[in-house]
């Protein structure tokens, strides 16, 4: 149902009104994480990504690996996290970021129903490439969930339109060759891939992985429609709690609002 996706509709409306999109990420199940989500929502997030911790997070660098391990050690499971997510009364769409085995284990339809009943809008599955995504996408479509596809800098030109055609909500433009984590500068690949994507799709293009602070967010948004803030948010949450998240999201929000 391209064009009818509710997350995409909402994000397009914001973008077309001149707003750059800000997508903070927080690992679900960390003690007090729901307060972190509320703080992000109250300070200018457009979508919030909730990470479902997995034992083997191959796309994640040290900060999110540590957060995942802490959440797992605290007893977090997809069921407990979705229970808590259901109770969140924020006015910002929530999506989950989860590795594919978290979906595969309960089964596509059952997991999609779990997300929908928890009020989740969509899912990002970093180890589920286009060719393997069919069964999950079908189940997600049935529940009205947006499957946010990732596009990588290594993709040849002919692959990008295929990825964009299957993307719902937004396209996650992977900012660099590498795993999640903060870097001292924005990789050249970040804007280069966003530019290539913008040339082939009108779906909102949001850059994630390696966008590490407000300046880099502004730099990425010179081309892209928005940014994901992952490790920078998670690190602050683990060090400073929800207040640290709120202050940081507000800082990036201000920079994006003033920069454009």
């Amino acid at each position, binding site marked *: 149902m391209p064009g009818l996706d509710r997350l995409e509709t909402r994000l397009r409306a914001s973008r077309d009104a001149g707003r750059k999109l800000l997508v903070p990420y927080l690992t679900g199940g960390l003690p007090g994480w729901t307060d972190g989500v509320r703080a992000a929502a109250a300070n200018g997030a457009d979508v919030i990504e909730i990470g479902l911790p*997995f034992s083997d997070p191959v796309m994640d660098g040290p900060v999110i690996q540590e957060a995942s391990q802490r959440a797992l050690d605290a007893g977090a499971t997809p069921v407990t996290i979705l229970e808590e997510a259901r109770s969140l009364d924020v006015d910002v769409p929530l999506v989950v970021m989860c590795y594919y085995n978290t979906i595969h*284990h309960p089964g596509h339809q059952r997991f999609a129903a779990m997300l929908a009943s928890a009020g989740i809008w969509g899912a990002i599955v970093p180890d589920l490439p286009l060719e393997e995504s069919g069964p999950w996408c079908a189940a997600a479509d049935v529940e009205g969930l947006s499957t946010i596809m990732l596009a990588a800098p290594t993709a040849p030109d002919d692959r990008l339109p295929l990825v964009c055609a299957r993307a719902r909500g937004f396209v996650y433009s992977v900012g660099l060759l590498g795993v999640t984590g903060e870097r001292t500068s924005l990789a050249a690949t970040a804007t280069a891939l966003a530019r290539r994507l913008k040339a082939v799709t009108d779906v909102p293009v949001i850059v994630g992985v390696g966008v590490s602070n407000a300046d880099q967010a502004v730099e990425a948004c010179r081309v892209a429609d928005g940014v994901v803030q992952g490790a920078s948010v998670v690190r602050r949450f683990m060090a400073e709690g929800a207040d640290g998240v709120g202050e940081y999201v507000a800082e990036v929000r201000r920079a994006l609002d003033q920069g454009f």
Partner: protein
Amino acid sequence: MNPTPSIMSKPSESGRFGDFGGRFVPETLVPACQELEVAFTEAWADPMFRAELDSILKEYAGRPSILTECHQLGARLGIRLLLKREDLNHTGSHKINNVLGQTLLAKRMGKKRIVAETGAGQHGVASATAAALMGLECKVYMGAVDVERQALNVFRMKLLGAEVEAVHSGSRTLKDAVNEAMRDWVASVESTHYCLGSVMGPHPYPWMVREFHRVIGNEAFAQCQERIGDVPDVVVACVGGGSNAIGIFSGFVDTRARLVGVEPAGGAAVGRGQPGVVHGMRSYLMQDEYGQVLEAHSVSAGLDYPGVGPEHSYLASIGRAEYPTVTDAEVIEAFQLMARTEGIIPALECAHAVAWISREAPTMQGQTILMNLSGRGDKDVGQMMEILG
């Protein structure tokens, strides 16, 4: 030859053996996997590549490996026991077959660097060796626990010019070394080939690595014909990821021989797992009720892996191969049994196969058993010294 296609033929277009396999990798790696599939397909069909690899296997690795009959142990157990001596290959295990194939391919693809994961260190040593031979840069990821218990192999890798990085995440064993090698590859994919050490991972690895180890089965089949004029009744190998087992099974899968892959009780993916997806493949996997991957526990670092290659899952699902388990205690016993009766110190991994044979011999009286002795036990002597006090 056999008029029907082999049970172990090429996987489907999506890289599947039945319902198992596939390519579950981050988008960043999809083009690299596709490129590797094309490169391997072309190289494998190229007589020049095959001739070059055969020549290196012969003149550098020491192939063909011999077949040794265990007269004492066989008599004691009431069976005829033949060993395929992969332990006598250069670097001391079957791993060199795959590594020479992959590094030759990496050079053909213009890659300058390889990364590898290792458990016991055998694949790491083989990778470091082949990288030295081929003039490639090499980095090996190894779980911190394994770095401790396989210190000698760590030093060997460094001697050979490789960089070894201890992995401190998760269970700090083979599973986590694979994660870290994949993370490296995600960042370095343009210059680097991931030299995966078993018949696992995303397509085309399970197929490609099996083809590089097919030489074990091909040789063993011919050697059995010559030695016993028949195929053995049973073919046995240990299974972690399953590369040595796949190699020897490939020579007998279309015969009447019973195929047995022996898993450690603490890492029994087929025996105790359910289908799951990790490290790029759908296969049997030890996992909890939410799909979190469980930590394996085995005395043998090389089998300390909660998953298994997808083709083994397929062979198990169609009933062509069976995957029993043995305990650490049985393995330690078997390690000593083979040393004392035959003067051969097996790798702890292979001692799993010995342990199963020894336990099940009463049900196989008079039968001929072919076991893949896939590695030598020198690396395990220090660990055994501690265990046996």
